[in-house]
């Protein structure tokens, strides 16, 4: 039975017959040729999960080698390839597309009361473009790989004899997928909102994805150009970045980081959007400071573009630039802080249901605060001189990237799993796996802060003996982390196959996407609703005992 989105209590009547999107066409072709944003989202989720596990395998390979300070398992050239591929796969195959193209695709049209995204065929095309780029890059990885680091710094990337070109070309193509997704979402939000949904009634996840899409559209072309030119340099050797011909290697770094710094906000911002949704749902409270969270999403998107030079403090940039970028980098932290305070304000005096998504939300808050603070520390030029290219930087960005973004991804996965598949998973196992992941994560990366501060450089195959104990601790943590992730894989697959079927809104959430069936029908809504209230509106109390959520 369709519910109108005006806060009226939900009925527990037996659901009327309808065809869920999963059953609307069961042939392979009906999936490969779908216009349905939900199917595209599910396919993206499968692909990014595969990418995640591939990147994870590279990570474990690195960590296992680092158990020993000297040569061990494989040689230094292989090590260089491994950390390069770990970075490339994790960032471009997983982190950039995961939440926007996975969950955004599925949930955003539902949240704004639309039947699909603005350009459904472009959406499907973005998935095929992703697949093409990823295949090409994978081919390059198998046939020799690349050893420049994921940052492709010149002049080494112009002169390396490894098989850089297919990987560079593959990433160039994947960039188009990102642009297509961002473009699609911006147009969707502008033109397909249901009647009555003003901008300030949009759910906060939509605001976050909107901000992300702006970054994707504006920043990715510059990466495209940077990769294009590196590809030309690698094959034709024009000498654009060659100092002996009057070139400037730093030009590449400017072009590269102009994208890659906003790129980290492409990764983090959607995770923050998931946080807003999960925190409101599991504390059963309206968002504290909705306006500020919404504007901060745009603020991060905008100001994030002005900070890229902090990656180049010690590579030869002028001190004038270093000063400017250092200050602006700190400003970006303000918007994150605003969001964190607002989330805590939402939790305060809320009615907390400590389910798996909420555990991940807690993890997120911890990781984004500590990771973010180390980021502010790194933005201080004088401190960065000591920490640049050490494990301190690695620990910082893994705290925010893996810590925050993975928490966001897993929170979204566990929150929207019943929405997407109409089944529930075993929440107890979810809490166990989540705890292992949070613990394992801390065990992996806190030693790396200490290592970096003590001076251990990154991307080094061998290290001094006195660093071994911390490295061993870090690898142990990584193993725990991997174990936790594998547990998730197991119980979610079990849930997919034989999980208990759930009702339309098992969490009792007031998110708009929960007001239609779980899983939704292909056309999302029988009738496009008219929106009369704001989002995450818990002021009308609905008793949630019937839905089986535990109260703390």
């Amino acid at each position, binding site marked *: 039975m369709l519910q109108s989105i005006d806060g009226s209590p939900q009925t527990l009547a037996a659901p009327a017959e309808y065809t869920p999107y999963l059953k609307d066409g069961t042939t392979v072709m009906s999936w490969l040729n779908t216009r349905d944003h939900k199917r595209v989202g599910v396919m993206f989720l499968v692909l990014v999960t595969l990418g995640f596990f591939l990147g994870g395998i590279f990570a474990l390979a690195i960590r296992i080698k680092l158990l020993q300070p000297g040569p061990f398992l494989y040689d230094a050239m292989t090590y260089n390839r491994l950390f390069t591929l770990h970075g490339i796969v994790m960032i471009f195959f997983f982190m950039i597309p995961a939440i926007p193209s996975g969950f955004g695709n599925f949930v955003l049209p539902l949240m704004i009361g639309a039947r699909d995204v603005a350009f459904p065929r472009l959406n499907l095309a973005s998935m095929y473009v992703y697949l093409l780029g990823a295949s090409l890059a994978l081919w390059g990885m198998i046939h020799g790989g690349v050893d420049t680091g994921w940052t492709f710094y010149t002049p080494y990337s112009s002169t390396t004899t490894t098989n850089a070109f297919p990987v560079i070309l593959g990433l160039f193509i994947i960039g188009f997928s990102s642009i297509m997704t961002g473009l699609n979402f911006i147009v969707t939000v502008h033109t397909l909102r249901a009647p009555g949904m003003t901008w300030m009634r949009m759910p906060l996840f939509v605001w976050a994805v909107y901000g992300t899409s702006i970054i994707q*559209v504006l920043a990715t072309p510059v990466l*495209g*150009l940077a990769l294009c030119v590196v590809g030309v340099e690698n094959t034709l050797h024009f000498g654009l970045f060659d100092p002996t011909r*009057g*070139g400037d290697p730093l*030009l590449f770094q400017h*072009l590269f980081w102009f994208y890659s710094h906003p790129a980290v906000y492409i990764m983090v911002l959607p995770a923050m959007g998931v946080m807003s949704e999960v925190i409101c749902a599991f504390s059963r409270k309206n968002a504290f400071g909705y306006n500020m969270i919404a504007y901060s999403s745009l603020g991060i998107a905008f100001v994030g573009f002005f900070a890229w030079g902090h990656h180049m403090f010690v590579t030869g940039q002028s001190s004038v630039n270093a000063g400017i970028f250092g200050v602006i980098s700190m400003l970006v932290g303000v918007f994150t802080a605003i969001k964190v305070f607002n989330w805590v304000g939402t939790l305060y005096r809320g009615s907390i249901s400590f389910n798996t998504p909420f555990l991940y939300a807690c993890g997120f808050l911890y990781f984004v605060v500590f990771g973010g603070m180390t980021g502010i520390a790194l933005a201080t030029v004088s401190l960065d001189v000591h920490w640049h290219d050490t494990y301190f930087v690695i620990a910082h960005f893994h705290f925010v990237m893996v810590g925050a973004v993975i928490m966001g991804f897993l929170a979204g996965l566990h929150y929207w799993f019943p929405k997407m598949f109409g089944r529930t998973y075993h929440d107890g196992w979810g809490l166990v796996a989540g705890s292992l992941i949070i613990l394992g994560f801390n065990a992996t990366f806190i030693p790396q802060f200490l290592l970096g501060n003590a001076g251990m450089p990154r991307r080094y195959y061998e290290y001094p003996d006195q660093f071994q104990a911390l490295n061993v601790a870090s690898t142990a943590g990584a193993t725990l982390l991997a174990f936790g992730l594998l547990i998730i894989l197991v119980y979610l697959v079990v849930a997919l196959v034989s999980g208990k079927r759930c009702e339309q809104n098992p969490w009792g959430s007031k998110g708009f996407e929960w007001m239609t069936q779980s899983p939704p029908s292909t056309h999302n809504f029988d009738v496009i609703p008219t929106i009369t209230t704001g989002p995450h509106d818990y002021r009308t109390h609905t008793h949630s005992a019937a839905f089986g959520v535990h109260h703390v």
Partner: protein
Amino acid sequence: MSSAATPAAGHDPHELDGVPEGILAHHYSSLAAQNEAVRLGMWLFLATEILLFAGLFAGYAIYRFQFPEAFAEASRHLDLSLGTLNTFVLITSSFTVAMAIHFARTDRKNLAVACLIFTIACALGFLGIKSIEYMHKFQEGALPGPYYAFKEVTAPGAPMYFTIYFLTTGLHAVHVIIGMSVLIVLTFKTANGRFSSKYYTGLELGGLYWHLVDLVWIFLFPLLYLI
């Protein structure tokens, strides 16, 4: 998922008169809403193209700043008359594509097709003139980096000018080819009567892309030829 031209609930039933079958997608409330969405999408795509060229302009800027004499000297050895001719060709092609849309939306199909064909001819002309210029460069040895053999310009940093020259005009030429292909497809569609006063959005979007190609050249021309 219906793709027939039957208007969805709530549409003005006359809205889709004269519009080709299957234009309106099911998830849009009206054709006007869809037109605006598609236009917004195209403008966003143009924004990505602007940012794409921005990186090369940044490269140009720093190398011109570093090697002002080499850039000035090398620029003087470009064929200014061919470059100026190319500029006129592109501006005129922009004019004719705008006229093509004007004729399409005032139901004068044949004039629209004629203008589009003229635009494509201009595009080919641009590419032809560019090829002549490139051939001159190859003959003179005015080539990027390690291939540089242009004895007449030896100020420090001269090869950098030609690296930038070939990268920017090369990327621009790629976009001319893409734009021309789009226009060729649109010419066939216009000839088949797809566009009219009721619906000309597809043509409008192709025109927007072509104007962007012109816009990039409007800046490239003085920066490369008139230092």
